[in-house]
Structures are given as structure tokens and as C-alpha cells.
């Protein structure tokens, strides 16, 4: 569905000491722990943005985030957000300067709400995401994370009065959901908006990991209460959950981690699913997708081998840039990038020796294209049928 702002699909990657934890294995990567490789893989799969959550426990571990950001920014050109342990304007400045587009504040915002204001004033609201983790407080019963395995998390002694404290029925929690803040979820969302937050990343900790769907009650409540975008997080398990998060929850974007990492849901499938049901999603033309997935040489070109379809004779090898590939696929006539003239070259334009494309194959490394063509006249400018008409004499094998 075109002609409007699309809903965003955002994979979240946990990083620890500069390495991706539970690395992306939906696609075979050389190194599933490498943040750059994971980011590239997600970009190619169609992710609209990325979130990197730093879960390093130590100061040294946190220091590696800046290097990671720099590396990712050199190779991946979609927006990405960095969160986890960001506490000061200096932290923010470092991460944004290294190349991140946005930072996310969670406990630091609760501890010091003014940080949100100062950050948005200094860097702009568009850089400041406030992450809000929530737990339900309905019916007076409280669910608390506990290390005591025998404790099911429900505090039966909690009273109806607790419900009054949380008009929305949800409390903001921090420290991985273990520390209650006494803040009502909707009130806090409105507060951070007024302080200058550019977006809200809302995570239902009750739903997180359950695959029972996003909590669309609180998502909708917050989406309706603020005029900044809301990213839904926590609980997605199947395709319908993303649809519901957008339609019922009113989310502008949806986030998931393990679901994408383990390949349980592929982003292209999710986008097709949403699109079929009328949700606007970002797509890319097939030619552009193909070009994006190809490994280019240092000049940014891809070699194209041309074989005659009828005889299977190898005719020639030349190079393509995006324009040449686009024109070739569009017209089914071979176009190349002339390296000597540095311009688009339509084979046959002067000689009349056009090459009609019958089939295109991609090599295993995705760094070369093979075209089966019907050749009009000769392929070589010398008049030879093939460019390869000169035999090289193999050296004699030396006897010892």
C-alpha cells in the first residue's frame, strides 16, 4: 500500500561487550556475534530501523558500544538507536557522534526526568527515545519479578488502593522489571513527551517472552495519549500479533528480538502479511533489492559473464553498475558500465550487435552475474563471435 507513511519493523539486538548476544541465525553469517554483520543482514531482510541494547554489566563493556556504533554506521545506512545504561549528556554525545541516529533513555529518565529535557534541547527531540517498561497493576494484584522460584509473582496482599495509584492500570518499572517506580504508565508517557522525547519505546514486561502478543491495551492508551510515535515491544509471537499491535494497539512501529534472531518470523514474510491486510509497509523494488544484496568490487561494480544461450559459448565479461543492471533487467538487452568512458554502455547501440537476455544467474558468493543471451552478430568489437578467441599456450610440465 503506497502513498503514505509506513509502519516500521524494528529488530532489537542485545549487545554485550561489543558483541551481539543470541546472534542472528536466521541467515548463515560468518560471525553471528558481529554487530555489523547482523545489522547488514537485517538491513537486507528489510528491517526499517535497528535498536541495539547494550546489556554490558561493566564500564569497560559499555565503552565498546561507541566502537560498535562507529563500525555499524560505516556500513549500514538505515536509522539505528542505541540504548542501555545511558545516563548523561556526555554518554549521549559520544554515541550520537559515533554515528547512532537516536539514543534511548530508560531508568536514567525516571531517575532524572530533566535529562530528557536537556538531551532533547541539546541534540533535538528526534534523537531522544524514551523506553518505558510497564507491568500491569489491575485488580490490586501485583506481579513482581523474583528470584524466589516458589513465588509466582502475584502479591495477594496487594489492595485495591494500588489500582487507584495507577489510573491506567499499569506501572512503570525499571532495572529489568524488578524495581517499581510508583509512576503510572500513561502519566509518565505524557510527562516524557512534554519534556521533549521524540518517540516512546513501550515494553510490556508481563508479555515479554510469552509470545502471547503485545499488550495492546496499554499500547493504545499511550498511543492515544501522546502525539509522538509509539514503538510496541514485548510479547510478539506470531504474524497476527504485529497486525494487532498496529491496528488495536495503535503502534507506529513494532519491535521484536528473539523472534527475528531465531528466524521464527522472517521480516519479508511479516511485511507481506501486513501489506496483504492493508497495513502500509516499506518495500523496495526487486532490482534495488538485488543490487543491495550483491557484493561489489572496489569500484562499486559487479562483473557480468555473458554466455550464448543456444551454444553455451562464453562470449564476454564486462562490468555493471546499478544503472546498467537496471536498464538490462528493464529492457532485457545487455547494458554495461564502460570503465574506459565512465558511462552507461548499451551493447549494440552502434554495432547493432544487441544481446537479448534469456536468463540471469547469480553466483554462490553473490559477487558475479551470469547472463544467457541471444547474440545478434558478434559479441566482440573485433568481429569475433566471442571475445575469447586467443588461446594461451600452457607451459610444458617439467619432468624431474
Amino acid at each position, binding site marked *: 500500500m503506497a502513498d*503514505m507513511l509506513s509502519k516500521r519493523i524494528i529488530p532489537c539486538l542485545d549487545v554485550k561487550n561489543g558483541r551481539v548476544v543470541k546472534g542472528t541465525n536466521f541467515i548463515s553469517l560468518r560471525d553471528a556475534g558481529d554487530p555489523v554483520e547482523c545489522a547488514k543482514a537485517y538491513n537486507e531482510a528489510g528491517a526499517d530501523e535497528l535498536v541495539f541494547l547494550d546489556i554490558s554489566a561493566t564500564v569497560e563493556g559499555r565503552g565498546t558500544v561507541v566502537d560498535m556504533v562507529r563500525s555499524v554506521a560505516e556500513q549500514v*545506512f538505515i536509522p539505528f538507536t542505541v540504548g542501555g545504561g545511558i545516563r548523561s549528556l556526555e554518554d549521549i554525545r559520544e554515541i550520537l557522534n559515533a554515528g547512532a541516529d537516536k539514543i534511548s533513555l530508560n531508568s536514567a529518565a525516571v531517575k532524572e526526568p530533566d535529562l530528557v529535557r536537556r538531551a532533547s534541547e541539546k541534540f533535538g527531540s528526534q534523537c531522544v527515545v524514551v523506553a518505558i517498561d510497564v507491568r500491569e497493576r489491575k485488580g490490586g494484584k501485583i506481579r513482581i519479578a523474583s528470584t524466589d522460584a516458589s513465588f509466582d509473582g502475584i502479591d495477594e496482599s496487594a489492595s485495591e488502593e494500588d489500582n487507584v495509584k495507577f489510573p491506567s492500570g499499569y506501572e512503570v518499572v525499571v532495572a529489568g522489571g524488578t524495581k517499581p517506580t510508583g509512576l503510572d504508565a500513561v502519566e509518565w508517557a505524557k510527562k516524557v513527551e512534554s519534556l521533549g522525547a*521524540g518517540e516512546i519505546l513501550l515494553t510490556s514486561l508481563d508479555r515479554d517472552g510469552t509470545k502471547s502478543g503485545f499488550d495492546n491495551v496499554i499500547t493504545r492508551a499511550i498511543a492515544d495519549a501522546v502525539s509522538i510515535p509509539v514503538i510496541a515491544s514485548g510479547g510478539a509471537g506470531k504474524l497476527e500479533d504485529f497486525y494487532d499491535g498496529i491496528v488495536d494497539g495503535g503502534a*507506529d512501529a513494532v519491535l521484536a528480538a528473539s523472534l527475528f534472531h531465531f528466524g521464527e518470523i522472517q521480516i519479508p514474510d511479516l511485511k507481506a502479511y501486513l501489506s496483504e491486510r492493508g497495513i502500509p509497509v516499506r518495500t523496495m523494488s526487486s532490482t*534495488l533489492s538485488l543490487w543491495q544484496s550483491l557484493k561489489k568490487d572496489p569500484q562499486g561494480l559487479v562483473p557480468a559473464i555473458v554466455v550464448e544461450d543456444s551454444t553455451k559459448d562464453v562470449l564476454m565479461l564486462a562490468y555493471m553498475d546499478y544503472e546498467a543492471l537496471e536498464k538490462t533487467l528493464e529492457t532485457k538487452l545487455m547494458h554495461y558500465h564502460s570503465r574506459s568512458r565512465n558511462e552507461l554502455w548499451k551493447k549494440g547501440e552502434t554495432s547493432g550487435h544487441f544481446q537479448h537476455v534469456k536468463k540471469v544467474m547469480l553466483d554462490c558468493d553473490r559477487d558475479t552475474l551470469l547472463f544467457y543471451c541471444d547474440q545478434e552478430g558478434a559479441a566482440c568489437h573485433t568481429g569475433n563471435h566471442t571475445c575469447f578467441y586467443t588461446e594461451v599456450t600452457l607451459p610444458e610440465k617439467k619432468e624431474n
Partner: protein
Amino acid sequence: MIAIIDYGMGNLGSVQKALAFLGYDSVITNDPSTVMGADGVILPGVGAIGAAMEALKSKDLDKVVHEYIATGKPFLGICLGMQMLFDTSEESFGGEPVRGLSVLPGKVVKFSSDMGLKIPQIGWNDLSSREKMIPSGEYVYFVHSYYCVPEREEDIAATTNYGIEYCCSVKRNNVFACQFHPEKSGEVGLRILDRWAAQTKA
């Protein structure tokens, strides 16, 4: 060599990295002679236009922009860098509407809150292109609350729809500008940047 104007506001690093990825050398600078000597100049910008114009003027870079554009060499404005090319912006700075560079006739206005849409527009939207450098139907990344209304229809290079159909790119002679962020628009953005930057090697 492409010069990326540094006036203290903007996604300079991202633009430089995208250009480097495409094989183009660039320098981030506020030095007038470096800018004037460049083969191509980019004016980026993120934030509030009032502060941006003040920052630009405080370093006399507004004059440099005019001088550079007069040379006819390729010029690219991104986001705020596009808005600054026009005459005025509704976005006030100390109560007064902001005066832009007046490189192109037109004004900058805010998305109406009556549309029932979130402001700013954040995310990917698709292009209706009137210009070779911009592929039609592809999605690019937007983050903005204000949009440009060029006086001359023929200056419009592309439009997109956010409640209303509005101009998201302009081109007039050597001046090209995008409301969206080509350096953040994945492969589509890289193609647009590449097409623009290729002119600097011509």
C-alpha cells in the same frame, strides 16, 4: 572532493560515511575557501531552523552558500538544509518567523495537527518523482515537522504524502535538495546520493 558544511548542527558523520561507502572523498568544514574549492557541497541539517540560520550566519557561511551556488557546481541540501534554501519558515525563533537563504522562492510551513497524524513525521514514505536522480515509488526516511512549499512548480523534484501531498525534494540547475535523509534511506538513499555525487566527478 565534496565539502560538507559544518555549522554545528547536522548529521555530518552519517553523510560522510555514506559518501565514503560509495567511494567519494569528503571533508567536513566551515572554512569558506575549502567550501568554495570543493567539487560538490552538501548542506546538512537537523533541529530547529532558527538556530540553524543563526549558526550559519554567525560564521558567514550563508554568504559562502550563495557564492558557491553561483559557481554552478553541484549543491545538495538535506532536511533542514533544504528548508533553509527558501524565503521564510513558520518555525519561529524568538517569536519571529525565520528568514531563510532565499535561494529558491517559497516558504516552509508546519504539518497541520488537524490531520490526525503524529508530528513530526518519522519513518519511511514513498516518493513520486519528477526527476531522474530520484527513483519513483521507492521509500525514503523522513524526520520532520515542517515542509517546504516552493513558489515555482517546476522546482519540485519529488513529492510524498503525509496527510497531504507535499514537496519533499527540489531541483533547480545545480541546486538539489531533499527533505528526507538519503544517508539514512538504505539502498534507495545510497542510489540518490551516488547519482548526485557522480556529478562532482564529471
